[in-house]
């Protein structure tokens, strides 16, 4: 009689959801800890330290590590970023133009420079252009060359980012500006671009992080001692000392810059999420 009772609960089979979740998570942690332990035990720390972390050699790197290498990395990156931003802006506006040939040219530029490895562009700028135009000098010598090469690479990415930002500004903003008597160009500069840049600040900062790493390609342009940046500097001193400590130290210098930048981006993204209008 009890079997036909409608109040009977379905019989519980196996584990509850909480139990299952606890077991699955426990298994994941166990695997993780096992992997770390296996790595730590099997690596030969003594030899690693000997090759990569010798305090005496690290000390020799100063002060040139900061006054030359880090300074140049920052200089190359920022100059490349400025060139890329200016060029990217022009290309983004061409991409959005009502004039067909402008749109096509911009599209071709973006596809080519996004599709080629940065290294090839560095070789093209450093070797190809001086061969083709022997009388043309890059302003600022190597610094100008690097700014152009990094600018050409980053402009393609930034153009797409800027275009997306401009298109994310509601059409009503342009209409309001135009109805007040703004010319199309002035509406773009005074009303649309300031809002677009607010939107694309996080992706632009990410682009800056990428450029920091790409600046290491300077090493293929042939630079003097004073023009060396972190990677070249680390690499050169590693050969001189027959030890890899300089490379580890140079790597830490990159992280010193890129990690805070990433944190800034994350904070900006969180902020813009909160400010959704």
């Amino acid at each position, binding site marked *: 009689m009890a079997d036909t009772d409608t109040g009977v609960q379905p019989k519980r089979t196996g584990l509850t959801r909480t139990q299952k979740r606890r077991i699955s998570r426990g298994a994941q942690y166990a695997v993780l800890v096992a992997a770390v332990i296996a790595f730590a035990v099997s690596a030969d720390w003594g030899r690693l330290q000997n090759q990569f972390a010798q305090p005496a050699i690290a000390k020799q790197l100063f002060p040139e590590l900061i006054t030359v290498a880090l300074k140049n990395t920052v200089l190359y990156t920022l100059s490349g970023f400025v060139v890329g931003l200016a060029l990217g802006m022009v290309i983004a506006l061409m991409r959005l133009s009502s004039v067909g040939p402008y749109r096509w040219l911009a599209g071709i530029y973006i596809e080519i420079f996004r599709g080629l490895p940065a290294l090839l562009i560095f070789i093209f700028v450093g070797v190809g252009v001086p061969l083709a135009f022997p009388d043309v000098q890059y302003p600022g010598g190597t610094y100008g060359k690097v700014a152009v090469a990094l600018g050409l690479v980053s402009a393609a990415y930034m153009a797409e980012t800027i275009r997306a930002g401009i298109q994310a500004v509601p059409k009503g903003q342009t209409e*309001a500006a135009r109805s007040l*008597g*703004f010319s199309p160009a002035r509406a773009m500069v005074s009303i649309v671009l300031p*809002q677009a840049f607010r939107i694309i600040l996080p992706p632009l900062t990410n682009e800056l992080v990428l450029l920091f790493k790409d600046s290491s390609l300077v090493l293929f342009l042939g630079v003097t001692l004073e023009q060396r940046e972190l990677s070249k500097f680390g690499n050169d001193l590693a050969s001189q000392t027959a030890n890899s400590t300089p490379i580890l130290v140079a790597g830490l210098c990159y992280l010193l810059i890129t990690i805070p930048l990433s944190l800034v981006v994350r904070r900006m993204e969180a902020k813009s999420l909160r400010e959704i209008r």
Partner: protein
Amino acid sequence: MSRPEISVRDLHKSFGDNQVLRGIDLEIGQGEVVCVIGPSGSGKSTLLRCVNLLEEPTKGQVFVGGTEVTDPDVDIDAVRRRIGMVFQQFNLFPHLSVTENLTLPQRRVLKRDKAQAARIAAENLARVGLAEKADAYPASLSGGQQQRVAIARALAMGPEVMLFDEPTSALDPELVGDVLAVMRGLAREGMTMMVVTHEMTFAREVADRVVFMDGGVIVEDGRPDQVIGAPRHERTRHFLSRLLDPAMAEVEEDVPDQGGTGRP
């Protein structure tokens, strides 16, 4: 009626195959307030947007203050300075404070100096009752306040004509009154106004004329008490009965060209 401030002649507008305006003739005199009413898709907003050329007409002419807006050689930016426009979605500039929303256009477009622009901005904010919000940003304002700032922004340019594109349609019902009060005040001061709206009370009390549009043509044009009070056309009666008493409306079949949506 004195010389027409706005004059529309045989205006046509198509979006692809979709004929939205099919021959509009309309004159609005100086200081006149004209409300344009009609079902959605009837072309009333498109007509308004053709007056300051936010939409380019397919055919026909538009004159504002004696200047042909539709002339291909006209300095459209100069014409638009004389035509204020208020949008359904306010379209305030979110990256600028309320005062900057009013001063930036004056400075960039009219080349007024900083002090003059600030003075005119303050005057117009006071005019719409928002002097105390001068330093706020649009996002912190209610819809009704944003719309009043948008009206003040247009007025700060010293327009001769004001166009309103459903200025209260995006507002919560309790915020509509403040915006309408500002518009009523403007009408009293003698501003020439063309208002696309669903606010029948406003149309009845403030408008000098009411124009009923349907299917891309003007069906009825006359004094508010005629068009709203005693409409002559069945289409007008039908629209008004659905608008004034939506709970009583019957489900309709979509019959093309029959007081419907204005789509072909």
